[in-house]
């Protein structure tokens, strides 16, 4: 990690040190295809992005729960398959949630 940091900082320092410095107003203004920038750049964007982020949080947390299950599953098979059925119940809830989200049209971008 330290090594990675050193490489990162190193190339930054090198480029600011070596590069020419001729700032001008035009060069430092916001790029908008050569036209003078118009309005605020923090434009409103579709709320769907926010929704996707929230859904990601939910489903990723659910996905994380699969990992501890996955690692003990192989060993637990020797004592019968109760973990398989337990996971199936959990999965049913997850699929229900997915169907709900899908029916509510949350994932359609247009």
């Amino acid at each position: 990690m330290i090594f990675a940091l050193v490489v990162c900082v190193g190339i930054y320092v090198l480029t600011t040190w070596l590069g020419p410095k001729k700032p001008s107003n035009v060069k430092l203004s916001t790029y908008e295809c050569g036209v003078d920038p118009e309005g605020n750049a923090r434009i409103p964007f579709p709320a769907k992005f926010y929704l996707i982020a929230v859904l990601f949080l939910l489903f990723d947390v659910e996905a994380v729960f699969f990992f501890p299950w996955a690692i003990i599953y192989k060993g637990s098979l020797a004592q019968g398959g109760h973990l398989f059925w337990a996971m199936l119940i959990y999965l049913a809830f997850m699929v229900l949630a997915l169907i709900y989200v899908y029916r509510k049209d949350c994932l359609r971008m247009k």
Partner: protein
Amino acid sequence: MDWSVILIATAKIVVIYGALLSSIPILTWAERRGAAFIQDRPGPNRVGPFGLFQPMADFVKFLWKEDPIPLNVNKLLYVMGPFLTLIPASLTIAAIPVAESAVIFGREIPLQIADLNVGILYILSIGSLGIYGILFGGWASNNKFSLLGAMRSSSQMISYEIPLALSAAGAVLVFGSFSLREMVQMQDGTVLGFLPAWGICLQPLGFLIFLVASFAETNRIPFDLPEAEAELVAGYHTEYGSMKFATFFMAEYMNMVTISALMVVLFLGGWHLPWVSDAFLLDKLGSVNGLALVQALVFLAKVGFLVCFYIWIRWTLPRFRYDQLMRLAWSNLLPLSLFNLVATAFVMYLGSLS
């Protein structure tokens, strides 16, 4: 503290990280030459033999260019953006096992920077930190194109992370371990008598999902919506110049190499040759170091093949539309990866009954 331990660790870091860093110019060269080959034009061919020194020239040019910080940007976040994409990209390689141990001066050295017992979780979690860099960079640039690119990129990456994690969970399920080294060791030998016991044979669907999701995670065509140059100029790095711009590209190529390496470890048998067991190789070669060398070469060849596959795909397929991309992630890949998990668990359950 034993100094030799630190020395060995440093040497491993320098060699593996150096290999990763030097793979970037080779990859950019391969990308451009491959593109030229597919499009039936010569490509970069002036600097050095076959244009091999072109990336070096590009690097020097990047270094010597002016590095302007535009007036309207949020300076701290603007500078942090490329940092935060490059550092996670460099860190993930640490958990990838390249080969089994080498013995030098009577000391057994596993050829892996850090043999973590939660290797796969480490890679998935550190890898997803790269989103912050892109989001910071895009937001701080104070540019409409950057903002849109960053929003697209982040929502695409988080959407595809779920199928990626779930298909990796399938591999964890089969091998019963988080440690990448143990996973590779379990892929020695054959299943059903004729197939190599690789993850791809045990988890064919999981491999496909992982492949598709990894394309999206690394922002490659056909999923390079964030920097769709026809719509968004250059996406989240529109306002970046000089080395900061190059940093984003380095991070992209590093991610590509790391995720290919992860794919090799999980699904393509790591350092194993198909139908050739380690014990047999060791017997033939007669030394542990020779075995380690062969393993490392096999591993490199597999990673190289996957990376070439990436380049091939990039210049073959057109770009998705954004709603298609999201639909693919949420309504196709996510249910498929859940099905893959259930099917795998069910087959294992049946296997335990008989």
